[in-house]
């Protein structure tokens, strides 16, 4: 098991109080798995991605345990995390386009970066050039300034840099959102190719765009208001979702070929609760068409079928969490 996250809590410190951006989050990521992380803005998906590599100044570690390849990640200790960063956990940031230093040629920037990690640039250079070639970039980019590259080229350059030391876990945060469709496709397929070639062992791809995830991810984890809602294979999430939130989310996505005259889609009424003081029980309760009295109690995130976990009472969590009675009354 490449990555295990157990009851992770990370809050944001604000003047108004703690924003509970990640509240008791736990999941596993297998070796070689590409997991998509989806949800609306403010659901905690980027916070989860950041927590695995570096908590920024406003984020506060409250509790939980993260294990990568059997070793615990000391995410609460900025210094102690340093040996893990880049070598074991690496990140492609949300604004990869502006992640490159504009005053350095790309080659020099990579050299400085590697030196800071104690890696010899010249020794790794052949591999670097091979990988640049692989993503369709010529080695000339090393002698160019970031401003000379197009958005897709910058994105691919950052992807190569981030994975140069073959990290065990790669976190890609909204890396295709700012790209055009054709570039988006090229970047997304390249990213999946990195796993196939063993440049990274497993990957968490964060995006709000489920249709992109469906193309490249093996499993998809859907978050809602700081909690996990559902995790299953990409096919199950798209074709047989069990959580009402996932169902509504999937049904609100227009696809090529769907026209409103024939098939009018609808959104989800209401908005997510404030995480400053989240409501008790299921957090989707207020917007959920299936909500009932038992939703006042928080549903656990439990495996209801093989490889399919859900946090919803209506989705059979109860049956999975309590042992089934031996004989059920068949004819009612």
């Amino acid at each position, binding site marked *: 098991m490449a990555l295990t996250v157990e009851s992770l809590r990370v809050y944001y410190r604000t003047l108004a109080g703690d924003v509970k951006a990640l509240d008791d989050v736990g999941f596993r990521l297998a070796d070689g798995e590409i997991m998509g992380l989806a949800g609306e803005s403010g659901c905690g998906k980027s916070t989860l991605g950041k927590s695995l590599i570096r908590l920024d100044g406003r984020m506060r570690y409250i509790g939980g345990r993260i294990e990568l390849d059997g070793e615990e990640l000391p995410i609460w200790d900025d210094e102690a995390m340093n040996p893990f960063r880049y070598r074991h956990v690496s990140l492609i940031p949300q604004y990869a386009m502006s992640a490159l230093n504009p005053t350095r040629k790309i080659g020099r920037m990579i050299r400085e970066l590697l030196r800071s990690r104690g890696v010899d640039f010249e020794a790794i250079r052949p591999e670097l050039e091979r990988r640049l070639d692989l993503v369709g970039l010529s080695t000339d980019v090393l002698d160019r300034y970031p401003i000379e590259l197009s958005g*897709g080229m910058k994105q691919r350059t950052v992807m190569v840099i981030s994975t140069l030391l073959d990290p065990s876990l790669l976190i890609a945060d909204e890396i295709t959102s700012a790209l055009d469709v*054709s570039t988006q496709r090229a970047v997304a397929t390249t990213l999946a190719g990195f796993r196939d070639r063993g440049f990274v062992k497993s990957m968490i791809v964060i995006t709000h765009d489920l249709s992109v995830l469906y*193309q490249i991810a093996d499993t998809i984890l859907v978050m809602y208001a700081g909690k996990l809602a559902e995790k299953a294979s990409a096919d199950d999430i798209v*074709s047989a979702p069990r959580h009402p939130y996932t169902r509504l989310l999937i049904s609100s996505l227009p*696809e090529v070929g769907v026209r*409103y005259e024939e098939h009018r889609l609808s*959104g989800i009424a209401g908005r997510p609760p404030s995480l400053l003081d989240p409501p008790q029980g299921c957090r989707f309760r207020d917007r959920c068409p299936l909500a009932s009295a038992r939703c006042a109690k928080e549903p656990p995130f439990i495996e209801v079928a093989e490889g399919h976990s859900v946090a919803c009472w209506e989705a059979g969590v109860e049956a999975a969490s309590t042992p089934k009675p031996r004989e059920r009354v068949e004819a009612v």
Partner: protein
Amino acid sequence: MLSLRGVSKTYSVGAFGGGRLNAVLDVSFDVHPGEVLSLIGESGSGKTTIGRMILRLTPLSAGTISYDGIDLATLHRHRLKEYYRHVQGVFQDPFSSYNPIFKADRIFSMVRSEFFGDVDGRTWAAKLDRALEAVSLNPDDVLGKFPHQLSGGQLQRLLVARALLLDIRYLVADEIISMLDASTRIDVLNLLADLKQRGLGIVFITHDLSLGNYISDTTVILRHGAIVEMGATVKVFGDPRHPYTQALLASVPQLHTRWGAEEAAHATNGSPQRLVEAAELVPVDDDHLVAAQ
């Protein structure tokens, strides 16, 4: 009717302005009342520039845009204001369209002082209620609030309501839902569809083909400022003839269908070659034009 004829926009580029960049090249199309026309293209295709030219925010380099037969370039002062009564725009980022210091409903009082100075309070309030109802907002939820207290979808709908206060006939909607969450964006899209049914003409600018397909009657595919394919949406999406349109459609990520195995087009590698002359549009079917290759 809003019609564009041979519209071009050229920018001077380079150190001494010696270079020429054709942001929009010889674009012609009409928008009728009750019609949604999608302008679809990747970044740099000139779609936003066309929207800005329709709103007279950017001057044209060549060609004419006319509204009910009157050339926009001839409109000044009073008559320009009349034009803005009929044609309005809503833009991509709802958060930057508002001044964060003031309450969000200030956009309404600004319309009032600018266009409806002589309307009394009660009539105005009734008008405002109607506009908010048309965008399915509850006045109590949104009036008197600051922009940060409202969601992106609410802010975007307020901007549409603001446009509805004027007797608009045409709306330029420039990427109005790309900043919104999936669960709310479809509601804003449905709102546009409802407005269309009430006779509004909409220029819907987007990079997202599935959104364009969902809502529009007519689709115009742009590349490097020129039209590559245009016509009835069902025809452009159902039977794309230009290789560029086909490549775009093949790259759209879809639920339920995975990308084919064929190599993705690295279409935007490096600096794309800009066209100097727009290719002639050839009819291939009723209401379906494709650029000659």
